[in-house]
Every structure is written in C-alpha cells, then in structure tokens.
C-alpha cells in the first residue's frame, strides 16, 4: 500500500523520514496545533508552494530544463480564477471556468514554449522564458481595468470558502508551541499552562479551503512521485544526464521535454488557483515577481533538486524562515541594543535585514550541502549503510581465508 502510494521512492534516510512525517502531521493537523493568523497563512503558503516547487523540480531537477516562466503559469491560475470570480460572481462555476480557462491557456503557451526548446539551446530557452514572463507581468500591470494593475485584486471567493461561512460547533485546538514554551518558562504551573494552550479554532470557510488545498497538493504530489518513478520519469533522467545519448537510444527528447514543460506549467496553474483562493488577495508582486521566481528556485535548490521530497523540505524551510526569521532577528537586535559592544552591530540584525541573513544561510547551505538537504541526508544514510555492508562483507571474505590457513 505505502509502496504503491510512494511509488517505491522511499525517503531513504531515517532523519528525512522523520522530517517528512513531521511536516505531514504539522500540515494535516496544523490549524489545530498552531494558533494565530501568521501561522495559518504560513501553512497555507507552504501547502501551495510544495505543489509549485515540486512541479518546478520536474523541469529543473529531473530534466534540466531551466525555465523562468514557471511563475507566469502560476499567475495564469491566480489571475484566471480571480478574474472569473470578479466577472461571474462568487460561485463555484466561476472557479471551475477560471481554472479551466487558465489551464487551457497554460497548456497552449507551454506547448509553444516546449516546441521552441526544439529550436534553441538551454540558455536561450531560459532567456526566452524570462522575456515571456516579463511581458506577461507588464501586461498584468498595464491592464488595470481587468487585473487591478499594481494594486492587485481582491479574490471574491464563494461564501463557503470565506471567513463568513461558519460551522455551528466550535472546534478546539491545542497550541503545541505555546504549551512547550509554557513548560520551559513555567514548569511548575503545568496545569495552568496546559489549560492556556487550548484555543478556539475558527471553523470557517478558510479552514475548509486550507484542507481542500492540502488534499489537492497531497494527491498531486503522490502523482508526481509516481511520474518520476515511471518509465517516463526514467527517460527524463536520461535527458538530464545525457540528452545526446538518449536520442541515440531512440528517445525523441523534444517530445519528452515538451511534455514535462506542459505538465509542470499546468501544475503551477493549479497552484496559482489555490494561492488566489487561500490568500484571497493577489498582486503582481505576490504572484509574478522575479523575486518570487528566484525564491521558487531557491526552495528547489535548498531542498535538493531532482528529489521531489526536496520540494517539501525546501518550501517548508524557506517559508518558515521568511515568516519567522524577521521575528527572530527583531528579538535578537532588541537584545543586542542593550549590550554595550554589540549595540553598534544591532542594525545589521534588524528584522528588515532577514533577506541578508537568509542569503548567508543559503550560501553556506549550498557550500556544505551542494545536493540540497535531501541529497545530503540520503548521502549520509547511504554512506552509513555502505560502511555496515563492508563490515559484513569483510567477515564473509575472511572466512574462506581462515579455512585455507
């Protein structure tokens, strides 16, 4: 059962397994474990970006197709559904029409892009995708009557997916971090701390939307896992490793590359639809910005290219860092201001400097873990099991020798 679900592609590292299970449980029970709007928003983003980054990994990590237009397809989905809801009213038909139309647009544009990759080499393909993505962004900015321009647009989600839709029964959550913090700071008042850790979960349409996204991402992720472990996925690896040889073996690599670009783009579009419905407000900056494209690339690289699980780890680590590193730095610089020698350096650790420190972390992680978190964890696990095997083999080899003696 699990073998089929994961398509035989196990994490192959005990620590990685633990991390993935922790993330899975954290996201599945998240609204009941972490209180606060920031936590809820971060979880929603993680769910969306796991899908987007995993789809990007199909291209970048598995096939070595570098595309900067991934976020454009994400934008197709986000703006497609937002515009449909805007013009057709807040109902589910509008969501279906918006999703369908943006998927269709994505597939057509991705097909054209894929066929273009037949003609041009990798670097030119990357540049062309960059140009197309930029022109789409300019278009969104200019067509402000339709898209709201730089101000963005509110996504008028159906009532069932919004905060106004409430369940009658109140739900109760248990704040894990609050409880742990309480236990550490106030170990004597365990009963009180435990009582305080319970909080009311707002059981509204947003919670429903979160779980819809969670299930969609889970299903599509397992589908992608199956894809990369299928004969098709093996050909993608062959293209990554040596396209020339893949052709000599009889694989029409252009078709495969086109197929993977179309597929990844369609998945990014679905991610965009989910993003619009989860965040309920989209701007060019939050959906199409070049910075965001770089972030997606970073999530893919940090997690580990060509591993899919890397997308889960990368998106989670990055988005938690993005949302909480600022708080952490704020605390740190506040504390430093009170220490005489360190006060000078305090502005360096200001909360608006989070990107600087994230950059430092990124450079260090790429230097020490060139294959990403997942790649590194797997390497360690493989080294350990190899060392174990050699021990066993060594014993076997010794036996006949001792007989001979």
């Amino acid at each position, binding site marked *: 059962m699990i073998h*089929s679900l994961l*398509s*035989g592609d196990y994490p192959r590292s005990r620590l990685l397994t633990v991390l993935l299970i922790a993330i899975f449980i954290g996201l599945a029970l998240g609204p009941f474990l972490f209180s606060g709007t920031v936590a809820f928003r971060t979880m929603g983003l993680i769910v969306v970006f796991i899908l987007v980054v995993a789809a990007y990994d199909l291209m970048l990590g598995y096939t070595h197709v570098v595309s900067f237009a991934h976020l454009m397809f994400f934008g197709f989905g986000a703006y497609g559904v937002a515009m449909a809801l805007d013009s057709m009213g807040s109902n589910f038909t509008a969501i279906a029409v918006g999703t369908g139309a943006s998927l269709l647009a994505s597939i057509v544009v991705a097909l054209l892009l894929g066929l273009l990759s037949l003609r041009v080499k990798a670097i030119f393909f990357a540049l062309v995708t960059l140009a197309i993505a930029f022109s789409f962004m300019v278009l969104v900015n200019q067509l402000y009557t339709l898209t709201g321009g730089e101000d963005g647009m509110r996504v008028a989600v159906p009532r069932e997916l919004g905060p106004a839709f409430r369940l009658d029964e109140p739900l109760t959550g248990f704040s894990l971090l609050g409880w742990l913090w309480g236990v550490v700071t106030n170990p004597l008042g365990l009963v009180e701390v435990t009582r305080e850790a319970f909080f009311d979960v707002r059981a509204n349409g947003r919670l429903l939307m979160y779980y819809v996204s969670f299930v969609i991402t889970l299903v599509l992720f397992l589908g992608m896992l*199956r*894809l990369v*472990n*299928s*004969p*098709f*996925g*093996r*050909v993608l*690896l*062959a293209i990554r*490793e*040596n396209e*020339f*040889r*893949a*052709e*000599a*073996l*009889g*694989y*029409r*690599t252009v078709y*495969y590359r086109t197929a993977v670009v179309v597929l990844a783009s369609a998945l990014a579009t679905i991610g965009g639809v989910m993003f619009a419905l989860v965040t309920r407000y989209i701007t060019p900056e939050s959906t199409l910005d070049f910075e965001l494209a770089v972030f997606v690339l970073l999530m893919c690289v940090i997690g580990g290219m060509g591993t899919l699980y890397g997308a889960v780890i990368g998106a989670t680590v990055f988005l938690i860092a993005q949302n909480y590193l600022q708080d952490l730095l704020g605390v740190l610089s506040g504390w430093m201001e009170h220490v005489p020698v360190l006060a000078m350096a305090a502005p360096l650790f200001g909360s608006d400097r989070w990107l600087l420190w994230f950059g430092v972390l990124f450079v260090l992680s790429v230097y020490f873990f060139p294959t990403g978190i997942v790649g590194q964890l797997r390497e360690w696990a493989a080294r350990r099991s190899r060392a174990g095997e050699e021990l066993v083999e060594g014993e076997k080899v010794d036996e006949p020798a001792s007989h001979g003696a």
Partner: protein
Amino acid sequence: MASENPVIETRDLTIQFGGHVAVNQVSCAFYPGTLTSIVGPNGAGKTTWFNLISGQLRPTSGQVLLHGEDISRLPAPTRADKGLGRAFQLTNLFPNLTVLENTRLAVASRYNIGYNFWNMAARRQDITDKAMHYLTQVKLAHRADYVANGLPHGDQRKLEVGLLLALEPEVFMFDEPTAGMSVDEVPIILDLIADIKAREDKVVLLVEHKMDVVRSLSDRIVVLHNGELVADGEPAEVIASPVVQEAYLGAAQDETEQA
C-alpha cells in the same frame, strides 16, 4: 553475399564544415551477415561518416539508405527505432545513473514504453531481466548497482557496448570499442562482436585502429583517407594494396624506417 539486397547504403554522402570537406562523396553498401571494418588515419572522417549514418549529423549532399529507404533527413531517435544502433568512441553514458538503469533505458527504448508515466519502472521485471542478461554478456552483472560514473574506464567501455547490445539493432556500429581497454578485457568485447557477426541477419560496422583485430574479425575492409573512400575489399587484399600502404600504413612504415 553481394547478390542480396544491402541493409544500409550511403550514396555520394558528403558533409562540409565551412571549407573543410570531412566526408567526400562516399558510396558504400553493407550486407547482412558481414562485418566491415572501417580504417584510416586520424581525421580521415570515419566517425563523421558514422555520425551521418546514425543521424547525429545531416549530410550536405548525398543519401543514407536503409533497406532502400532514404533516411538521411530523419533525426537520430527515428533511425535508432528503425534498427541503427550506435556505440560511441568517447564513452557516452548516463553518468549519475546506475549501470542497471543505463541498460534498462536501452531495453525500454526497444519496448517503446517511454511514454508510460503511470506504472512503476521498477515493477517491469521483464525489462530488468533483459538488462541483466546484457550486463552478464559484457561481464558487468556484478557492477549493476554501481553508478556509471564511478566505473573504471574499461568497465565504462563495456557498458557502452552493453547499451548497444541491449538496443538489439539490425545494424551494429562500433566506434573503437576496445580503445583504452586492458589486454584481458579486449577479448570479451571481440568475442561478443564475433557472436553478433555469426547471426546471419545482422550488419556490423567497426571502426578500429588495432590492425590485428581488424584482420582477424573482418569480412571486408573499407579505407577512408581525407574523407574519401580509397579502398574496399577482402582484408588481405586491401591491407596489401599500395594505396593503403601509402595512406594508412605509410606513415608508420616511414617512422620504423627512420628508427
């Protein structure tokens, strides 16, 4: 044998890179059940001619015919599907995949399952078995789980040949298969080539520098020099012919005389 129809044939095949004519008006036909060696000094155009036949290059003029059909404009993958198999002079593998996965890719290509995106590749035991069969032939079965990149040079050459065997083509094109192999590895490959030749319906083309190998295996020798076909015939008579002595062995003889 000449009475049969040729499997593969080149007609006035020419390719020009800028002002340099690398292959010049080469016409030659190859028949089933024969092994033809292609010899010539470095830069004679042997590998370029191979590239034209297997589709890595398109000719400036002339034709490549497979069973009489002009395939000179078809891309390499289509030609591979039609039965033209190629092993490369410079080792050309999937470096970060295992030896088994490399071979499975070749087998899977013949089974035409590349577009299957839903079944698990690892569950196709038939393909794994086939791949292991070919790995056993090239004496690499014990290395199946190694990453291709980590193999010693000689083993990489063997895998290169293994991939060609796994494609089960009608035309086998070997480009210096034994280059860089150790003395005890060479016979493994030569025996395999001899086995293929013994199967009456296959065509074997072999680019090789080692004259003893060429002499012992070939049914026929074709000599290229400066992109032109200068001699073609039985091994003994070609090697003895003055034009070959001059074009190919000439330089070597001069050197020995001087020494």
